[in-house]
């Protein structure tokens, strides 16, 4: 049931991302100065912002950008992690030692710290904050992938492939990667929600996407000054961030359970 619910919500989010006009026919950037700061009503489901723009329309039209940021950050994080994880998991001892020490150093920049350092150097913005989130999440993934590769490497079927004289590359591509792929997929699913949350936190702090773009983080950043008076400006975009994080996590968890029981 949980799985059906998550897939349903994800399908809706994908529709909103691909064809936002279907769910919200209005213009997300249309300004109506006379209708600014309207609370939620039937005419404006989630209210309006400081320029009278409809927040529901803006949320729907912002889905694509927000999901793209989450996906790209996860892709950067998992891609780098795969590189490091494979180097450490498959390489000779010294390489494993070096990579592990390197990851340890990165772990000493806990949480958002590395992302903030990256933003200090390259300046705030959508692209830098996306890369920053990817970089900040990579060490965690790399550690999991490394231990995963180490387990698979000792599996009997890989020993059999070695005995049968398969080349190193063939062993990695045909035997190791497919067996790591399942857990990698789970990792990505769990990671997307987390990346969206992190990227939106950066946007909220004014370091990521900037208004007037219809992107969830940017909407949050714009509504920041009005938290106590016009709560709907931050509450609803935040609700969608929570919703997408929850459904991707739920889906990731149930995939994980399936992998485990099979």
């Amino acid at each position: 049931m949980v799985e059906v619910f998550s897939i349903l919500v994800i399908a809706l989010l994908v529709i909103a991302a691909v064809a936002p006009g279907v769910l919200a026919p209005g213009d997300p950037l249309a300004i109506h100065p006379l209708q600014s700061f309207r609370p939620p009503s039937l005419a404006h489901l989630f209210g309006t912002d400081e320029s009278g723009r409809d927040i529901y329309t803006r949320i729907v039209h912002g889905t694509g950008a927000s999901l793209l940021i989450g996906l790209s950050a996860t892709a950067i994080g998992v891609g780098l992690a795969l590189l490091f994880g494979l180097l450490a998991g498959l390489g000779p001892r010294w390489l494993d030692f070096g990579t592990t020490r390197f990851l340890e150093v990165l772990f000493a920049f806990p949480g958002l710290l590395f992302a903030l350092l990256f933003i200090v150097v390259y300046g705030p913005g959508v692209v830098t904050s996306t890369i920053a989130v990817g970089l900040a999440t990579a060490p965690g993934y790399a550690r999991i992938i490394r231990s995963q590769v180490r387990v698979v490497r000792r599996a009997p079927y890989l020993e059999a492939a070695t005995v049968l004289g398969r080349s190193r590359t063939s062993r990695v591509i045909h035997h190791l990667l497919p067996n790591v792929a399942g857990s990698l997929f789970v990792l990505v699913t769990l990671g997307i929600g987390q990346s969206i949350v992190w990227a939106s936190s950066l946007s909220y702090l004014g370091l990521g996407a900037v208004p007037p773009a219809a992107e969830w983080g940017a909407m949050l950043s714009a509504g920041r000054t009005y938290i106590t008076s016009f709560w709907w400006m931050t509450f609803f975009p935040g609700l969608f961030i929570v919703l997408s994080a929850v459904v991707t996590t739920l889906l990731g968890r149930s995939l994980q359970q399936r992998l485990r029981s099979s």
Partner: protein
Amino acid sequence: MAAALIGEAPPRSRRRRRWLPWLLLRLGGVVFVLWAVATVTFFAIRLIPGDPAEAILGGPGSQTSAEALAQVRAEYGLDQPLFFQYLHYLGRLLVGDLGRSYALHDSVLNVIAQNLGGTLLLAVVSLIVASLIALALAAWSTRGGRVAASIGSLLEIVAAAVPHFWLAISLILLFSSVLGWLPPVSVPGPVGLVLPVLTLALPLSGFLGQVMRESMLDAMASPFVLSARARGESENDVFWLHALRHAAIPAIGLAGWAFGALISGAVVVETIFARPGLGRSLLSAVQQRDVPLVIGVVIVVALAYMLVTTLTDLADRLVDPRLRVDAR
């Protein structure tokens, strides 16, 4: 089978280790990581485009004379070769000198010392509250049957997926705008601490709860619980005396991670509730590109992180006797 490892710590080495070499090795590792953090930070900051001397005098666009720039360069050692600057920087770090903040015109150490207490109080209280919530949630969902288990795990996932800023906004709405019980900004004293602590503690308790529940379930199915039951201990004793202690071990292992989550959360929470602290100083330093302050906070946080992980490893060895003897 292979996938079972996802999300779990890598298998521990069960080799017998003596205390002294272990401790020396750990300390060596700490020193190495701190040196690496300092080096990475130093060279990363050099990648920033623009003249640091200009940043000190008020950023690009401010009308500064060539003499003033030259004077600042000489004062901050910016006219020396990069390698000398690096050595100088390491030397100053060794004696605990973190330089002067560009924006606040005060020594970085002073700024950090003034803000550390607030963040530490917030983090420690949040950690305690989060552990209590997680424990209650895990105990209830382990023992309360199937419905409690699914509600419990759903609550844990939702709690873990909620971003701090959104939780903070929702709590402000509920407790301050609607109910009018608590102030929307953090006032001095325990009342001002309630909403910031809840904001930090709830997501953390979601993560901790998930881990605790898994290890409690493991423990309830393990041989030592079976033997305790066979000895005739009551189901309550079995749970509170045996399973609970077992659940604490992986939770302790999460301390380093929890520390990171608390620091990141503090940046957001202190900003929203206008609470003075290290997180808010870091954010304003990032926004103003106050390089010495950013470096100072990063190094202090890395030092604290290494301290926390080393202490938890130590605690692990004390709590879990299996790490001290030959297991196989």
